[in-house]
């Protein structure tokens, strides 16, 4: 019976261990995984895969991709906080100065698209330190008609 009693005990013991707090950063996993997550509908607009994988290849047909770091800097955009027409966008983690600039450009472009009837006003810009010296750029915008 495959030592089932032992397995049950091991799994049950593991499940009862209380660990100190740790951070499991919720980032944009591959699109096929993200869309399977429990809160997927709240994340569809959060994660931008336009520069990744087959989407990057399709969107880049006939164009030269700048660098790998540019792809890494592709932003994720959150539609949260729609109060007063404001919305917040955040980048994927970036580790290089050029990637940070490109991530900023990507966020501003995304905001401008969302405010296509007018202009996007930057209400807030902050840089969140992450593990490994990386940064996450978070920007809040408001559409001006």
């Amino acid at each position, binding site marked *: 019976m495959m030592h089932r009693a032992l397995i049950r005990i091991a799994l049950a013991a593991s499940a009862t261990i209380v*660990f100190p707090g740790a951070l499991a950063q919720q980032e944009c996993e591959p699109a096929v995984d993200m869309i399977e997550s429990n809160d997927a509908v*709240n994340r569809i*607009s959060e994660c931008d895969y336009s520069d990744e994988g087959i989407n990057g290849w399709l969107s880049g047909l006939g164009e030269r991709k700048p660098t790998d770091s540019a792809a890494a800097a592709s932003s994720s955009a959150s539609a949260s906080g729609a109060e007063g027409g404001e919305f917040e966008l955040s980048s994927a983690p970036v580790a290089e100065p050029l990637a940070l600039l490109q991530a900023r450009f990507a966020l501003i472009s995304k905001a401008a698209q969302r405010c296509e009837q007018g202009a996007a006003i930057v209400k807030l810009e902050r840089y969140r330190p992450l593990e490994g010296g990386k940064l996450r750029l978070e920007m809040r915008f408001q559409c001006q008609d």
Partner: protein
Amino acid sequence: MKKSVLSTAFLVVMAAQSANAVTLYGKANVALQQVDEAGDSEIELISNSSRIGLMGDGAVSDNVLVLYRFEYETSVDDGENSGQTLTQRNIYLGVQTQYGTLMGGVFDTPLKTAASPVDLFNDLEGDIRNIFAGEIRAKNIVQYVTPKSFGAVTGKIAYITKEVDGIDGVSASIAYSDGPIYLAAAMDQDVEDNVANTDTYRVIGAYTLGDLQIGGAYEKYDNEQGDGDGYFASVQWDITDQWVFKTQYGQSDIKVEGRESFSIGGDYKFTKAIKAFGYFTQNEDDLVRDDDYLGVGMEIKF
């Protein structure tokens, strides 16, 4: 015929790329496994829910998004499933505002999606559906999802109209996800087809500590014929950036008396999107099954 289908698909993809915030996604997951089912042995090549889909959103105003998802399964192993090249998986159209999302279509119920973080052998022979009821992709389902402004809490409630027998179903869940902690409770009522007066209740928990994730679930099920309950536990250890070890065990009397499912396996990640994997699964119960599966496979996500 095939050419026109391919042309149409290509145009759809190109149109999608030219529109705003459209993502083409999918995965191919194929395994070669040694099967020993009730004494009969054979080798199988299997496609484990390989799929292709489109998802995206479009803003109709500053505060209103239209969301959509069209996802189809493709059988990488033998090219067809019940005579179909592509079969429907999750398909929906929804409207999202600061007050939440309202969506309709055919998609996984709140009870099913609530357990997604803890089923480490999902879509393989060790899938949680072997021991738990309620792993349902419902047709004609309308669902409300709480907005992102609720923070760590996501609530869902869905109404499923059967359109034939007059017995409509309800599914609901509430989940708390904050950093390493995931907790959820969910219920189904009369969601299953052709079974009257069914109730399913499920609680799920998962905790991540660095490279280690533990998870568990408990389910209680009852209908006119009887009731049953079961539990499930899983452990995943990211040994290195490439190597992942995982195991899970479940036992229940919900589907069959004495059903047990045990799986152990590992992944080797070549990249974020490509991995090789191996597994051993044993599914058995007191009445029907005494099955072993030993397999290796590859997966690519795009």
